[in-house]
């Protein structure tokens, strides 16, 4: 187990990168503490897998250093780094039994027979693979195969970290939930450093203590799931986390309030002050769940036209227009929903201000 550190890592897949867009990873400094459960979250193509491969050593970064417990391992190949990685699609040694598949990483490292058997049995027990141990790996179902891949990642107890590259993509939804629980349990039991790549926010938010959100080759925010939800540091975080994402409205400042197309929305005093200090292109951001929907006019209510209503089961999503800007609001179950005209309440403590796409307050 180890603390993993990125020191000014950048990577480009082409030789001689010049423009920032040539880089799959743009200058990243980050630390993964020993024993943490991290999720790397971001849309497809944002550099998550690249970052993971740099950690494991499958990819040598164009620039920067990778440190394990302070030791520079940038030049070391994966087999010298003592790291485990699980890939998106199950990778199996078809001709081997399930037991031999799980024992393979131990055998290659010269573990003795007794230790190997014990470790494999432990891991098989955790992943419910015990009845299949003597079967050929090739004949099993897709999720059993992926469990074997997970098992090979977990079988060594002394690894610096276990890296998961969207490991549950091929798994059925109900098993996905089950395996995610398992991974969480394993993390709590063994306290291995785990880094989990996914583009599914639910997966990231349920698995990890710390979520690292990536966008176009950069880390835009590292934080707990709550922090990402409540205080998105970048417009992209607000938009990507939450379903639906944050509402953004271009605005100007007028004393302690924001003005959106002639409509005044009150802000918290410190938010307005920081917004005024920051300058730049200002936008107001608010989560759909923090908006209150009313059927009648009231003091400070923002009048909007109702456009659509989607029933999501335990709540409804109301889409409304404010002078051409679309706003989504979440209406809890059982609350009356206005038909044509509605008034929205923007609670000042929940109304955020972004300057040039970055959170100011």
């Amino acid at each position: 187990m180890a603390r993993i550190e990125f020191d000014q890592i950048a990577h480009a897949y082409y030789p001689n990168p010049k423009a920032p867009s040539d880089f799959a990873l743009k200058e990243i400094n980050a630390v993964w503490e020993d024993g943490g459960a991290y999720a790397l979250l971001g849309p497809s193509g944002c550099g998550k897998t690249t970052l993971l491969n740099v950690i494991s050593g499958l990819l040598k970064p164009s620039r920067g250093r990778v440190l394990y417990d302070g030791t520079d391992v940038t030049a070391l190949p994966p087999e010298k780094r003592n790291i485990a990685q699980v890939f998106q699609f199950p990778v199996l040694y078809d001709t081997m039994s399930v037991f031999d598949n799980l024992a393979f990483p131990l055998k290659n490292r010269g573990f003795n027979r007794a230790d190997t058997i014990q470790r494999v049995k432990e891991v098989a027990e955790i992943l419910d693979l015990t009845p299949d141990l003597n079967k050929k790996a090739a004949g099993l179902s897709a999720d059993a195969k992926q469990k074997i891949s997970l098992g090979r990642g977990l079988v060594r107890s002394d690894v610096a970290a276990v890296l998961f590259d969207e490991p549950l993509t091929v798994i059925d939804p109900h098993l996905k939930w089950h395996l995610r629980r398992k991974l969480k349990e394993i993390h709590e039991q063994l306290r291995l450093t785990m880094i989990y790549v996914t583009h599914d926010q639910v997966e990231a938010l349920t698995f990890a203590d710390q979520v690292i959100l990536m966008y176009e080759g950069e880390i835009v925010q590292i934080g707990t799931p709550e922090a990402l939800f409540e205080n998105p540091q970048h417009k992209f975080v607000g938009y990507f986390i939450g379903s639906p994402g944050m509402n953004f409205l271009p605005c100007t400042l007028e004393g302690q309030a924001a003005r959106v197309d002639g409509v005044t929305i009150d802000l918290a005093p410190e938010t307005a002050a920081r917004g005024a200090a920051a300058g730049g292109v200002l936008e107001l951001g608010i989560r759909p769940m923090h908006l209150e929907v009313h059927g009648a006019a009231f003091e400070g209510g923002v009048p909007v036209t109702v456009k659509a209503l989607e029933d999501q089961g335990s709540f409804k999503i109301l889409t409304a227009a404010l002078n051409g800007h679309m706003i989504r609001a979440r209406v809890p179950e059982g609350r009356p929903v206005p038909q044509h005209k509605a008034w929205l309440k923007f609670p000042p403590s929940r109304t955020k201000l972004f300057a040039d796409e970055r959170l100011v307050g």
Partner: protein
Amino acid sequence: MEKWADNRAWYLVLPVFVVVAFSAIIPLMTVVNYSVQDIFGPGNAVFVGTEWFKQMLTDYRLHDALWRQFIFSGLVLLIEIPLGILIALAMPKKGWGVSACLVTLAIPLLIPWNVIGTIWIIFTRPDIGLFGVGINSLGLLDVPFDHTARPSYAWITLMAMEIWHWTPLVALLCYAGLRAIPEAYYQAAKIDGASAWAVFRYIQLPKMRGVLTIAVLLRWMDSFLIYAEPFALTGGGPGNSTTFLSIYLVKLATGQFDLGPAAAFSLIYFLIVLLFCFIFYQALLNVGKGEKIS
């Protein structure tokens, strides 16, 4: 589902049926017809039952040719398959080297059989051939090299010819099989700390099973049916040392005009090839399958 009352769509299969009939079934039936008759001349044939089959099955020259054939095909497989795999493993994976290797490998495959025979006859000639002159000038052989001089020399030349001609096919098939292995397998092997041998044994070889099945079947059939090369080289000699099944068959059929025995021989030959293809196919299909209890 409701059945169609009108089944005229079957007529669309007719062209294929006609082509197959003329290209395979009718000629094969003609051979069957010959194999049970003694033909004295046009319109003068006597039904003899299984006599020709009995005669051919006890023919010692056929037995000799059959053994020779087995040894030859066996050696060819033993050399060509591992050599093909080695070449495929050594080939570059990207860049201009790939095209260069592929074109170089394809050259022997594009040359007609009899031209190959001529090339190798000239190459091994003791008076002007590069190989013949070269090896004789070393002075290591008690009898100077000449492919007609000794059975072993003829065999060496023939094997070299066959291997030179067909190993590229095995290599190309294996290369295609290797290229189809997803990168994740190699990455996982690196993470698991697998040695190069383990990568070959547990990833590359199992993933090449499909192409190797095809390679073994093709090379087995083709080398078992070899004709042009020994015909061009020594015509089956020296002595009978390179008289393989097809050479003997042609001698029997067009040399001695023993159409009945030759037809019976053809059918036996055909069944042997079929039988071995079936055995290889089943063996390769099932290798490494089934449950293992450890």
